[in-house]
């Protein structure tokens, strides 16, 4: 569905294969760097067909959402809250992956009364990006995509694959990142998004402001956002931590385990 968000270009939200009903408990899915809503579709479909209203958002400048990408986690958190306004949703569970997990955290902190649950997947704080990767993202983004793709997958045979059998996850994720990168003419979206992650420095203050139950769902073999880098933020959020056998691309590599964790978080 198309959302008309105050002060922004129209945005796209996938609703899980069912018409959006703001009267139902809402789950908002927030994707990571150089991704779009399609990283969430299995989880979103499950939620939409099990009593939830679903908004899997394409962030500005990503996928089907128009406009320039926003420059900070804080700006993106405000945009997510404005998207809830546009959809007529007073309160929602916020589910984010990687960069999206920081956006969800910040949104839950900025409007604690509106967040019913916070689920941070493939997360770490701080989410620092090495200078070498930032430089490669700036100078040779296609090479950097391949590097990130290699780091993001725990193996070469995640089953039953995503969104269905026969998909080669390395290739599908690389294709998605290339599509997102090519969708922004005149702006290096990869470098932009990784800069957003790298610059975010408000995580501990945000954690202190969050009031809802928090779940961290981590890939046990994540090399992008290592579980070791989550100890501080997990303690600050008093979060329940679930580890699944996957890398950073955990929704694709372990869809059933991630669904189980999400169901626990939303229960």
């Amino acid at each position, binding site marked *: 569905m198309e959302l008309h968000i105050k002060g922004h270009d129209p945005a796209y939200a*996938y609703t899980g*294969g069912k018409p959006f009903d703001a009267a139902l408990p809402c789950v908002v899915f927030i994707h990571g760097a150089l991704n*779009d809503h*399609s990283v969430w*579709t*299995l989880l979103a*479909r*499950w939620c939409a*067909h099990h009593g939830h209203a679903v908004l899997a958002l394409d962030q500005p400048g990503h*996928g*089907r959402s128009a406009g320039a990408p926003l420059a900070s986690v804080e700006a993106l958190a405000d945009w997510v809250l404005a998207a809830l306004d546009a959809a007529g949703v007073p309160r929602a569970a916020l589910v984010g992956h990687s960069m999206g997990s920081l956006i969800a955290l910040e949104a839950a902190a900025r409007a604690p009364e509106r967040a019913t649950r916070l689920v941070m997947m493939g997360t770490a704080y701080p989410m620092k990006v090495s200078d070498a990767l930032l430089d490669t993202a700036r100078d040779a983004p296609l090479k950097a995509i*391949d*590097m990130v*793709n*290699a*780091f*993001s*997958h*725990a*193996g*070469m*045979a995640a*089953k*039953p*694959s*995503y*969104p*269905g*059998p*026969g*998909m*080669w996850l*390395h*290739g*599908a994720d*690389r*294709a*998605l990142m*290339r*599509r997102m990168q090519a969708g922004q003419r005149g702006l290096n979206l990869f470098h932009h998004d990784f800069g957003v992650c790298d610059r975010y420095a408000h995580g501990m203050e945000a954690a202190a402001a969050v009031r809802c139950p928090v779940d961290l769902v981590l890939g046990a*073999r994540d*090399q992008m956002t290592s579980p070791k880098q989550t100890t501080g933020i997990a303690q600050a959020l008093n979060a329940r931590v679930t580890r699944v056998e996957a*890398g950073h691309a955990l929704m694709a590599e372990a*869809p*059933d385990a991630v*669904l189980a964790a999400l169901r626990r978080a939303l229960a």
Partner: protein
Amino acid sequence: MPGHSEPGFDTLALHAGAAPDPATGARAVPIHLTTSFVFDSSEHAASLFNMERSGHVYSRISNPTNAVLEERVAALEGGAGAIATASGQAALHLAVSTLAGAGSHIVASSALYGGSHNLLHYTLARFGIETTFVKPGDIDGWRAAIRPSTKLLFGETLGNPGLDVLDIPTVAALADDHRLPLLVDSTFTTPWLMKPFDHGADLVFHSATKFLSGHGTVIGGVLVDGGQFDWMASNRFPELTQPYAGFHGMVFSEESTVGAFLLRARREGLRDFGACMSPHTAWLILQGIETLPLRMARHIENTRKVVDFLVGQKMVESVGYPELESHPSHALAKRLLPRGCGSVFSFDLRGSRAQGVAFIEALKIFSHLANVGDCRSLVIHPASTTHFRMDDAALAQAGITAGTIRLSIGLEDADDLIDDLKRALKVAEKAGT
């Protein structure tokens, strides 16, 4: 894995899509010869049918062994995913039927495998899908043939029978200008020689019967999506961008940005036309792929030796291999196929049809049959077999002479192949006196 870069071709050929079986520890890929898969619960069943979960339901739609093959070929091609089919013909049909219907139009290279030509020119026309054939190198012809109803551009990496090299970057750019996908039959080259996605193609298919399998044992096909084509922006494919009443009103381009084509092809074409692959076939093709890099290197090495031999023979009028400067596609081949131009090629024997027959019958190692891409060397004389009803004028129209011989060079000792050819050439020469 994981590492700093994506795995290389040889590693992918052995590992992509497969890991030790978690249930048994089996290291090799198990053959899942089962029609169907037990649900954990009614809720689990419903969520699989509604695509809330990924998994296997029925082996016509998907199967764990086939999925390994699909992932592996997609990995080798640099694609997003793939679907295994009953044959290469079924893969071509699945691609076309997913994107086109009655009233649709295709622009195709005229240098196609005869089976593909039959499907497009005769059979699909009966179902209202029209094809315009253009010479593969005639870029203006490709451009002029595109209509508002066009859904697909289609060619072969190495065309039949003359091995015209398809200028994929140029045709792909043309397709992109018109927001149309380019489908490429990559059977003759395999991803070891060329990856069409790297040159701008959008969809690739193989007759896996040939080099991917490599052992002449099974019939199969694989259709691969590069995941780069923007179906929404094209605005020509409501099959992918509008609700599909045949599957929960699903809008495939919303479900998967990069896998919309494969979702529809599997959920409609494989489901309804049913041209699926047996898991046993998938397993045999996987066995072949594990040695694909080694075999292709040897195929090319042997082919170059045989080509070198034939070029110097007085009974040989001409040799049609793109690595030769005399071949019309030589410059393109140097650019797009630096590792080699495959191991299937034709040469023209001097003399009559009878001499061609004598040549074939004198061969001892080359097998006389209608296939290519086997580990064994193969030969066929079109004028006395596939094209026997044609007179010499009609043969010329098809780019064939009475003396055209097609070889598929296998993995035997090159010296033995050359000796076999040498002896047969002498027999053919005597048959003309």
